[in-house]
């Protein structure tokens, strides 16, 4: 045990602050939004921060993604061949740009990732209506940098997984009991900054474009 640690803890232990009695600490979700309202709020928030929203169905989402790729003239896209949704995309390679899988450690191909990758496609664990956020728990099949380094991030969101607030997500998805992953993320739009004269500029360090494909 370090000396600093003991000194700090001991100093803190000499004081016993008045305990706080606020029950307000647990005051939770304040909204009562049905599914339609959740979708509307989510879309409104996302559009406000310049994310693109594409509405799709269970059957045509993959084609919609092909259209987006064409429109944006993507030459290649990172897609996991291991997820159910990734498999669908690998089954229609002729309509899509060159699909690449992120199946080796970043150190082995950092330069290609940074310099030659046009887009990353990821699934999500759901979304949050209040703030317009995507929930991502990167895995070894869909690693952390997939949604960060390429200039375009395309994400798939099932509207059945659209929650009202972040508090609700933590509770209903049982984050504490499940145990937290290496990295959990909320993504609410493309990368941006207002550091120069409070003027918004997009695509600072992360993706310049975020496309959310909403499956209803």
């Amino acid at each position, binding site marked *: 045990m370090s000396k600093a640690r003991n000194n700090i803890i001991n100093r803190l232990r000499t004081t016993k*602050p*008045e305990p706080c009695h606020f029950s307000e600490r647990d005051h939770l979700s304040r909204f009562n939004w049905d599914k339609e309202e959740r979708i509307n709020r989510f879309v409104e928030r996302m559009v406000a921060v310049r994310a693109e929203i594409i509405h799709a169905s269970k059957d045509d989402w993959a084609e919609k993604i092909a259209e987006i790729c064409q429109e944006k003239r993507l030459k290649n896209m990172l897609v996991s061949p291991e997820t159910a949704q990734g498999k669908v995309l690998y089954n229609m390679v002729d309509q899509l740009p060159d699909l690449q899988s992120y199946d080796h450690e970043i150190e082995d191909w950092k330069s290609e990732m940074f310099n030659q990758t046009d887009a990353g496609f990821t699934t999500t664990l759901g979304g949050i209506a209040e703030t317009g956020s995507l929930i991502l728990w990167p895995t070894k099949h869909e690693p952390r940098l997939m949604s960060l380094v390429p200039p375009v991030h395309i994400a798939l969101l099932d509207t059945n997984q659209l929650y009202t607030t972040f508090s609700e997500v933590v509770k209903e998805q049982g984050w504490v009991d499940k145990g937290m992953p290496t990295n959990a993320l909320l993504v609410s739009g493309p990368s941006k900054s207002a*550091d120069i*004269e*409070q003027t918004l500029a997009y695509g*600072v360090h992360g993706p310049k474009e975020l496309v959310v494909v909403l499956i209803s």
Partner: protein
Amino acid sequence: MAKLSDFRVRVEDALANEEVRGNFRKAMDGLMSRRLDQFPDEAELERLRTQAMAIRSNSLDNLPDLLEKLETNLTKNGIQVHWAETVEEANQHVLAIMNKHNAKSMIKGKSMVSEEMGLNHFMEELGIECLESDLGEFIIQLDGEMPSHIIMPAIHKNKRQIAKLFQEKFPDIPYTEDVDELTQTARKILREKFFNAPVGLSGVNFAVAETGTLCLVENEGNGRMSTTVPPVHIAVTGIEKVVEKLSDVPPLMSILTRSATAQPITTYVNMISSPRKEGEMDGPKEVHLVLLDNGRSNIYSDPELLATLRCIRCGACINHCPVYVRVGGHSYGTVYPGPIGTVLEPQKDGLKAHGELAQASSLCGACGEVCPVRIPLPSLINRLRYEGVRQDQSSTKDSGSRRKTAEALTWKGWSFAAQHPLIYNTGASAAASFRKLMPSKMGAWTRVRTAPPIAAKTLHQQLKAKGIDNE
């Protein structure tokens, strides 16, 4: 004339600089009105503030236990924890990690605690490069400046000044005042740095004891880059940043981002609970957390001043401060400016060094009204004024050091006279009778103002003449 303190010199310079004053005014006006739009329902805002205060109070009530729990859970998750009583110790921890990896440079996400540590300066003396990657921090680092605001470090500059700076530092890139183009220049330069950096350093917004999770909020993605691309990640934070439960994070985060930059949420919320695991393809292989005390445990021992540690560094008190908007962030000469700096800095570094800041307040109360965790900032500023000249109830460093004998005697005399009507009235009539003898210059106050003349008759005499007599 008495020599002006460094603080006053900086204030006078700042007040004379109209360009910078304009930059602050414009930014703060925008921030205040946009924050208000985020909280349309006042009753709801008050509830949220009470909730946020309760969460932070709970953290502080159980601080030693929660810190131990945090350490246990982080360690279990594979994150290495280092404790530092002083900034020197914290810098040494970071240095030891750098040396272990033979690292000669680091890329930094935004971290006010690293500013508090003077980390960049410390490392540069040893030939280690620290590159700021937050756009605002990058800009001021280019110009060799300190942040002028805890959330928007380059807020004192306008785009013309930034364009000129870029032209001077990157002469190969054509001059532009276009914000998008300036941003893309920074993106290009920094991407390469992320690519090569052996170590990434970041701050922490909340550290969750229950799960051993470090939460970071940001908009640009530089925080995610710094904590994901380099093989080693070092996080630095103050010991007060711990919260008990994961469910404490959503409400705190929501009021933090809305109070700070009027956003319902930042673009990224980055929750880190472990280094790269077996089979994972990216992320740092080592994650370290340096927990810094630097006077916080001393603040903790005072039941009133303890409230200072509830702060979630949103910057709202700064944005709403009528003094800050006029004198700007650099005048304070401290890491944290504005009301929170005024309260925190003298407690951290002593009243001798920064006690004067407590005088630079009109006690208008705006800061206390907007603080999302209900820190009674005006009362604390008042308390520190008291501590500056009195030693009786204080644990604050250098209490009583600002006491001036003449001033103390004057007040003693005044308070004696005020309690003895005969003396008071004689004095007041004498002042009225001899008012012509009053010098027109009376110290600092009359340097830029005309002294008001003393009335020919005292208030008591005037009232008596009207037939009102309370004696």
